[in-house]
């Protein structure tokens, strides 16, 4: 018996590992999640590395852009070249500062229209898998971020916080197939749920056949899900199809925000119990 276990220890442990994974996943079927003792530790471990890599990327980008801008001044003498290098680098830095400043100012203006307790955060890491659309924020429980809070940008809805550690938060993006935002057409008030899809990008589900929705209609949050404040831009209806059967229309959505290009976001506190400011 013991020799059987010893001979097949890898096979048995791999099998147990598969079963244990299913045991972890199982509560999700009922909409619950198991407590995660390792996640916060991993995130804390990775946080400085992710932030460091992000800073390195930005610095490399800045230096490279400075270098590219420099190549056209080859006829200048060495002294002027050196001066231009300095100036170009300075300009590049200032442009980056100005761009960041503009983005932050827009965020601040946008923030004034949001419920109190909203938090500004930066993206420091992305999803490690093709199959999931998420990113990691540099703010966590210590900054007032809670699970279930909405994540938005001045351009529109970005996603929702699905897990949070003391210094980080994981955001499920609106482009992920597991996400869902209660939305409505601004013109006709036709309602549905905007969710990601692996087929043709985000779609608006459960729009009744009788509802009036047309291509180009602006889609905004309805506020009825209790997560996203009412009136935030989600995107626009890019394709609307009524099949000859079925209860609902097929609506493809062009999102207002490209989450993969988002650098700063606002984490919005809609629940009255969560307000801290």
């Amino acid at each position, binding site marked *: 018996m013991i020799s059987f276990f010893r001979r097949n220890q890898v096979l048995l442990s791999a099998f147990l*590992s598969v079963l244990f994974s299913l045991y*972890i*996943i199982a509560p999700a079927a009922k909409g619950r999640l198991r407590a995660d003792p390792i996640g916060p530790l991993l995130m804390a471990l990775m946080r400085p590395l992710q932030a460091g890599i992000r800073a390195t990327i930005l610095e490399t980008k800045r230096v490279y852009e400075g270098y590219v801008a420099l190549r056209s001044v080859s006829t200048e003498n060495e002294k002027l070249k050196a001066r231009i290098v300095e100036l170009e680098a300075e300009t590049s830095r200032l442009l980056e500062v100005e761009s960041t400043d503009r983005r932050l100012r827009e965020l601040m203006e946008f923030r004034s229209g949001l419920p109190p307790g909203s938090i500004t955060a930066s993206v420091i890491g992305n*999803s490690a898998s093709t199959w999931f659309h*998420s990113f990691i924020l540099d703010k966590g429980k210590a900054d007032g971020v809670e699970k279930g809070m909405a994540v938005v940008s001045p351009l529109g809805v970005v996603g929702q916080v699905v897990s949070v550690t003391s210094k980080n938060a994981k955001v499920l993006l609106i482009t992920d197939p597991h996400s869902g935002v209660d939305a409505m057409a601004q013109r006709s008030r036709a309602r549905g749920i905007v969710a990601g*899809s*692996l087929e043709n990008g985000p*779609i608006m589900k459960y729009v009744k056949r009788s509802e009036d929705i047309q291509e180009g209609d602006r889609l905004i949050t309805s506020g009825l899900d209790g997560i996203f404040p009412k009136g935030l831009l989600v995107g626009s209806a890019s394709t609307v199809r009524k099949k000859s059967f079925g209860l609902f229309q097929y609506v493809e959505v062009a999102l207002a925000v490209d989450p993969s290009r988002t650098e700063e976001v606002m984490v919005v506190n809609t629940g009255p119990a969560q307000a801290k400011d």
Partner: protein
Amino acid sequence: MKLSLLFLSVGFILVLLQTTLLHLLPLGPFVPDLALVLCVYLGLNHPTVGAVVGIFVLGYSVDVFSSPVLGLNAFAMSLVFLTAYLSSRCIWIHNPLLSAPVVFFASWVKGASLMMVWTLFLTMDGLGIGGLKYAFFDAILAAILAPGMFALLKRGQSYVEELRMPL
């Protein structure tokens, strides 16, 4: 012990790369699944109980940074390891180039297992053709990177094993 440390560090670095630098590649939503290549490598070349635990932790780490539900990637990676381990009884890869088709197949196993769990445990629309497209491009990317990574891992493993050998 040193070998376990090597693979643990490699796994840690791969997850870090997947969450940061690899997103700079112009591949749209696709992120090269380097963790999967490591998983197949361990299943074929270093199948131990430690590797099983390592693969579970690797999958769990990917879940921590990506998945809304914990355990999805841990499940898929464990299943890929199991498949690779069972395959290692009948295939033996000497040439790193041969790792490409094996990783391509393993990526499909991972994609299929993710879709299976989604269907069984979670409600999700929009799988179908889109899911197949994701699985295909994920598999192609992993297969392209597999020979290089296999060669590097093999070299690292040989180096550590030489260090362990008594003089």
